[in-house]
């Protein structure tokens, strides 16, 4: 190992001193809006070297002294060629102009898959996300991600994702670098991400770069728009269930910008007249009201201090609320009494991030982030009865609340060092201070003077999670590239100290100018578990830490892939993978999340998961018709010593075949259509199929046992769904969206008949 490191630095040093070189660096932005162009390509054809802009649009390229023609390009932008005379380090910011409204989609300026060490990675274009058919008019990033091979939704309509056999807790969902814990609205039907506020989405299923850690199955890195630096403008839409708007623009032109977007559903408002009518016609004094809504707000302020420094502040705030209220009055002894009851549940995330970009020099870029993330869930009910006119002195006042949540305070420092075009070295450290609130019950009772106010339930758990990483993305020779790194993390909880060294390596072997073979290995550690026995990502799902009795999760993944650029904008990517997940948790047999009499650690078993499979993705990236066909062949199993008699059993979302066909066709500037067809092998569910008499003894007599052969013993029939959407664009009216849904063979266990 020491020898390899020495060799690596010798090579880097040799490259650095062989010839006089200088570095050109700067930011690549959209000329119209000033937004950073994440992943923009910088290329010097004469030398066949280049660089890629990072998530802040920053690039750095070290070249020999002399004159160079440098091409800057990005998807959908007109490439820009600059002739530079490089006799010293220089800074050059580039603004790329849009190619304009085209009759067909043209892809240029992107980094080709086969030219990169990225493996199992997809950049999801927001234009594609917005052109696909959507549920109830709500564009959803996560639902689009579910159409990629290796990613499934588990159950219909859900915004939860399962990546290569992993659980829903194993996805690191980052919004501007800050983890989001419950990324769902409306009981899992919508994700919290408002597409209007999003600039870029990167999904990583394997071959994880060392900069990422904390989850073992996937990384979904979502970057918000920064705000237009040139002019104020916005967009809005009115949907079936919600409306939204986004406005962004400069506070100080070319210096400071803002972006704010918000949306709110109005099912509760639409339902009000119907509820009022029902109350009017029910003929009793019983009045009921209720409703559900969610809202979310994204905002960002971006300020350029000078060429070397800029700061960003971004925030997300979202809540869901479901409520029911009722009032009832009655006469007794000539007096009127009122009884009011209310109940409901609410949950939401608050996220804030303050980032500082600093350029130490042309070769060293740093990003420092301070972040805050808070997720809360609350449910409860209250009952109050009082005599007319004595509302303040109720005869009975009772309430019960259940609260849970997780709060993080964190800080990170990430550095990018570009010693020469063949190396990009990244390193950094981070710390997260977690506060887990695993279920607290608050009970209040006041009955004519007798009062009780008590709190009981799970105690708060505090934990520190620290990490450090170093990685080098480098070219070994003209045909071989590698990204090798090491991620180290530790976790301190209840005086227990966990740590994990996580090696990461990805190699790309260029076979020819259009194809390559890739191989990767990554180890990931995860110090959090999600306690859930539902399938749709309910807010009741409880995040809990690894403890002194429940160890942290470890994931090892191996992947082998082949990618080839074909004619006419087609590209095919195939990957085979094997993943092992250790120390996963599952509820014990018979255990229930409603069981508050036990500590959660007593309700779970610890075991392993295995997943392996083959993914094929055929994409058409140019022309009037674009889209992809994805196919996944996979096996996913679990093994727990105390579940299923210790035998291996299929994971609930073990799906042998998954196919997705995604097509968009642009007829002209006014009309485009989208089509999505998905097919999936049915889920494995646990069904008791026979019942029999139990042994009579001192305790049980004449009791019946419903017999379960094995966990997930029954395979539901296959499922497929076709969605069609039509987008009609009008200059004055914006975009109208029509949608059609065709669903076949949607089954639930309740529909099983003898």
């Amino acid at each position, binding site marked *: 190992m020491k020898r390899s490191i020495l060799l690596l630095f010798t090579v880097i040093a040799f490259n650095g001193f062989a010839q006089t070189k200088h570095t050109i660096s700067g930011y690549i932005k959209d000329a119209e809006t000033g937004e950073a162009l994440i992943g923009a390509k910088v290329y010097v054809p004469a030398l066949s070297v280049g660089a890629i802009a990072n998530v802040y649009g920053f690039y750095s390229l070290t070249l020999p002294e002399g004159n160079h023609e440098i091409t800057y390009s990005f998807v959908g932008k007109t490439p820009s060629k600059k002739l530079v005379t490089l006799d010293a380090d220089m800074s050059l910011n580039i603004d790329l102009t849009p190619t304009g409204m085209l009759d067909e989609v043209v892809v240029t300026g992107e980094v080709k898959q086969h030219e990169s060490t990225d493996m199992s990675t997809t950049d999801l274009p927001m234009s594609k996300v917005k052109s696909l058919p959507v549920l109830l008019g709500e564009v959803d990033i996560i639902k689009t991600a579910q159409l990629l091979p290796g990613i499934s939704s588990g159950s219909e309509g859900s915004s939860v994702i399962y990546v290569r056999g992993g659980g829903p807790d194993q996805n690191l969902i980052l919004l501007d670098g800050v983890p989001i814990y419950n990324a769902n609205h409306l009981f899992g039907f919508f994700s919290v991400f408002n597409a209007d506020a999003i600039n870029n989405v990167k999904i990583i299923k394997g071959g994880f770069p060392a900069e990422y850690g904390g989850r073992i199955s996937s990384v979904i890195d979502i970057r918000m728009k920064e705000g237009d630096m040139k002019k104020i403008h916005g967009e809005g839409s009115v949907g079936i269930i919600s409306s939204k708007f986004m406005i962004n623009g400069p506070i100080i032109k070319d210096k400071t910008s803002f972006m704010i977007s918000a949306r709110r559903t109005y099912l509760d408002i639409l339902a009000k007249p119907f509820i009022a009518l029902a109350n009017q016609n029910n003929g009793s004094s019983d009045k009921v009201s209720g409703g559900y809504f969610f809202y979310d707000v994204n905002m960002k302020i971006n300020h350029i201090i000078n060429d070397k420094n800029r700061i960003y502040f971004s925030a997300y705030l979202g809540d869901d609320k479901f409520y029911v209220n009722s009032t009832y009055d009655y006469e007794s002894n000539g007096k009127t009494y009122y009884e009011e009851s209310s109940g409901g549940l609410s949950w939401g995330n608050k996220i804030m991030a303050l980032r500082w970009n600093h350029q130490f020099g042309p070769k060293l870029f740093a990003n420092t982030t301070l972040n805050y993330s808070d997720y809360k869930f609350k449910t409860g009910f209250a009952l109050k009865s009082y005599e007319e006119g004595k509302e303040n002195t109720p005869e009975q006042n009772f309430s019960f609340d259940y609260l849970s949540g997780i709060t993080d305070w964190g800080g990170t420092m990430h550095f990018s060092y570009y010693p020469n075009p063949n190396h990009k070295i990244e390193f950094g450290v981070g710390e997260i201070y977690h506060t887990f609130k695993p279920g607290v019950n608050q009970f209040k009772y006041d009955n004519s003077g007798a009062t009780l106010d008590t709190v009981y339930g799970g105690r708060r758990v505090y934990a520190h999670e620290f990490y450090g990483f170093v990685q080098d993305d480098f070219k070994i020779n003209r045909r071989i590239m590698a990204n090798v790194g090491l991620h180290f993390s530790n976790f301190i909880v209840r005086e227990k100290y966990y740590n994990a060294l996580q090696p990461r390596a990805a190699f790309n072997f260029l076979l020819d100018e259009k194809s390559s073979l890739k191989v990767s290995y990554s180890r990931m550690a995860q110090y959090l578990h999600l306690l859930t026995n539902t399938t749709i990502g309910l807010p009741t799902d409880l995040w809990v830490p690894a403890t002194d009795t429940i160890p942290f999760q470890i994931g090892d993944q191996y992947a082998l892939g082949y990618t080839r650029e074909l004619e006419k904008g087609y590209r095919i990517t195939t990957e085979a993978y094997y993943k092992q997940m250790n120390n996963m948790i599952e509820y*014990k047999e018979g255990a229930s999340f409603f069981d508050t009499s036990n500590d959660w650690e007593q309700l779970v078993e610890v075991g392993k998961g295995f997943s392996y499979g083959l993914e094929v993705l055929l994409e058409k990236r140019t022309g009037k018709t674009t889209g992809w066909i994805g196919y996944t062949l996979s096996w996913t199993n679990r093994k727990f010593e105390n579940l299923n008699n210790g035998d291996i059993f299929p994971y609930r979302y073990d799906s042998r075949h998954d196919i997705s066909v995604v097509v968009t066709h642009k007829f002209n500037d006014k009309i485009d259509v989208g089509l999505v067809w998905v097919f999936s092998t049915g889920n494995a569910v646990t069904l008791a*199929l026979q019942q029999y008499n139990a*042994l009579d003894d001192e305790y049980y007599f004449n009791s019946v046992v419903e017999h379960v052969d094995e966990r997930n013993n029954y395979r539901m029939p296959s499922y497929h769904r076709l969605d069609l959407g039509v987008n009609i664009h009008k200059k004055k009216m914006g975009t109208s969206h029509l*949608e*059609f849904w065709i*669903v076949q063979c949607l089954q639930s266990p309740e529909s099983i008949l003898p």
Partner: protein
Amino acid sequence: MIRYISIVFPLIAFSCEKEVHLDNEIKTPRITVNGILDPEHSIELEISESAFILQSGFKMPALENAKALLYDSDYNLLGEFEHETLGVYYLPGVQVVSESTYFIKVSCPGFNDVTSKTIVPRAPINVDYQMQFKDDIVSYQISFQDDAAEVNYYWVSIVQMKKTEYGFNGFSDINRHICSNNVAVENQSEIIGEASICDKFLFFSDQTFNGNAFQINFDQSNSKEANDTVISILNFKSVSEDYYKYLITREAYASHQQDPFAQPGQVHTNIENGFGILAGSNTFSDTIYW
């Protein structure tokens, strides 16, 4: 565009719920056998048929024309069970002995044959007990020697009975509930996921005291009233591993059966091709007058 929409329109959104028809094999009833082989008791089996899960009915039909055979560990036939009533079969004239393995085979027209085996464990060794009264609690201290040569499982019940005119043998139950805070029993509670360590019987393994002399305390509320004549019947059994697994899994199954959010539980069975449990036990029993 209108043309395209008109083609697509007939396919406009609809949802469907499709009925899933299950294979007959899944619905076919199987033989259910339940029985405990204990040297202190006569040999008895309850034989019934299982039913498809959606079939209503509290008790499954008894099988009254089954043929049940008992074999020793060398497959020597020990006898054929006789049907007494409602699917209850006895094997008169045969007594099982401790530390022996037994096999059964049950067949019935219209069903696949089922088989099972169990071992009758050695009775608890060197059992001694003491009783103490404090306030309203009766404490029982049971001590015994665990056999180091094998994994052992134990089962305890203590029944308080008082003399009445109408009770069985002149005595009626007044309290069966026992509690223990011993770590061995707590382990069992953790397996089940229950905090409670009080029940009508308790069971535990020798995991925490393997091969050692062991003393375990059980508390019971004193239900004796003035002028009552009260006895406590102590049953302390060694049980087979299958029986222990059955007890653990059934306890977990029963404790959350009414909770729709509870994870499904598997009740252990050792009946090949069928359901139920063939258990082995060996009982130390004593009656304490107080």
